[in-house]
């Protein structure tokens, strides 16, 4: 059974069709990349997967739960990280993690915070206000928050945006390790094509709300005759046909 199953999903705002009849599946322990330019429908799709937004039509099933009827059962086993959604800046890192540990029903909160602090090198930050941290530190804290409940499904919206290469690599390594150890299913929206190539088993390309292509990164590279996913992304974004000679 697929961990995430999206069938004929659409979202309409007035005359605008933000997501147009898309579908995909992700099985346990796999990572799916959701790619597309600005306005392609990635954020809208993630919001519907998280239950923040009610679809106009279609269905979403996560961990066997229909998100239209039983989203809270799934949400307890999911988590989410995005640099565009902040954590309360006046609370310390430890207080923030404690809040979300309670919200997600974590048992052994002190132990779990200690584990995450050790694994993500947050020990020195625990007593600092979240609002005073650097972008890289905030991303590590956001990642710790997203792992507080040992999620079976992790939704990541540009998890390494605004990070220096060293910190970005640290985060990617940590995600690879967590997935290998836990069997977590990850859905990743990113504009960093190297990151997508490294982390994703499959990629869904969105454009103007529609799925325009999909496949494993290696298959897409071969199909488009390109050396890296960024060129494939540009081919799709600029409507260059598959058969057209790469320039």
């Amino acid at each position, binding site marked *: 059974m697929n961990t995430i199953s999206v069938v004929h999903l659409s979202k309409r705002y007035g005359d605008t069709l933000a997501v147009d009849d898309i579908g995909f599946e992700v099985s346990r322990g796999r990572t799916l990349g959701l790619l597309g330019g600005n306005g392609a429908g990635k954020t809208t799709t993630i919001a519907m997967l998280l239950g*923040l937004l009610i679809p106009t039509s279609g269905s979403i099933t996560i961990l066997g739960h229909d998100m239209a009827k039983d989203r*809270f059962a799934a949400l307890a086993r*999911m988590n989410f990280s995005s640099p565009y*959604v902040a*954590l309360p*800046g006046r609370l310390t890192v430890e207080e923030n993690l404690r809040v*979300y540990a*309670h*919200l997600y*029903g974590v048992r052994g909160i002190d132990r779990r915070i200690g584990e995450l602090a050790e694994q993500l090198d947050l020990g020195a930050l625990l007593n600092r206000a979240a609002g005073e941290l650097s972008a890289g530190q905030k991303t590590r804290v956001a990642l710790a928050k997203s792992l507080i409940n040992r999620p079976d499904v992790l939704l990541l919206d540009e998890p390494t945006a605004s990070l220096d290469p060293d910190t970005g690599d640290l985060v990617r390594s940590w995600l690879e390790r967590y997935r290998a150890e836990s069997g977590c299913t990850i859905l990743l929206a990113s504009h960093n094509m190297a990151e997508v190539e490294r982390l994703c088993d499959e990629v869904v390309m969105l454009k103007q709300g529609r799925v325009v292509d999909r496949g494993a990164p290696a298959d897409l590279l071969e199909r488009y005759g390109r050396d890296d996913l960024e060129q494939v992304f540009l081919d799709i974004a600029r409507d260059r046909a598959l058969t057209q000679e790469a320039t």
Partner: protein
Amino acid sequence: MNASVMASGQRVWGLMYRHLALFRRSWPRLLELAYWPVLQMCIWGFTSSFLATRQGSPAALAGGALIGGVLLWEVSLRSQMGMSITFLEEIWSRNLGHVFVSPLRPFELVAALIGMSAIRMFAGVIPAALLAWALYAFNVFAMGPVILLFFLNLMVMGWAVALAVISLILRHGAGAEALAWSVLFGLTPFAAVFYPVSVLPLPLQWVAFIVPASHVFEGMRAALGGVIAWDQLALAVGMNVLWLAGAAWIFRRQFQVARTRGALMTIGE
């Protein structure tokens, strides 16, 4: 205890802890809670004292009603503001997205907001009540145990109004924020805080009839005279049940509309 009830309680506590942690490190926030109720008590308490010294015992009774009115009306005001502002804190910190994708149910969010509202209200009203006792020898508890029913009814009315304000914020975003401070003040003329309902013109007496607080304040004036007006308390409870049911319906509906329109993703922007 049932495991799902325990889990629900843990989520409610999680959100309350987030707001209590803010107060733990910020004395100006704590001071702000008591500032306005204490200031009101100073102004109206000295006014009452002045009236009592100039005009004798009937004015002293009126002075007592004035101080009692100020104190009890603060219960409603602080309850309403405490709940609305706690919700606004989530918007201001851009944290609402994380809260709404957690397993926290909407009714648990409301329960946490009510819990914080009660804490904020007591932190504001208790210093004012102590001041009334110390400066004007006005003991609000001299009215007897019925005062607890007055408190409860005024708190519930504040929560119902706050739920309606939060619904408007969900519907209209930051544009409706100002209502968190102002909306209940608009009901003051019909709440019969400082004068009996009979003073109002007849059409306005009907408006006052549907405001739960007007029955509480009629009851308070009776209690100051040594009488417990159970009929007024029953009307206050009845109106509060209607107000709370109406506000809960509006909140539930606006929450669904917000999820349909995508407002939970953009609220506060």
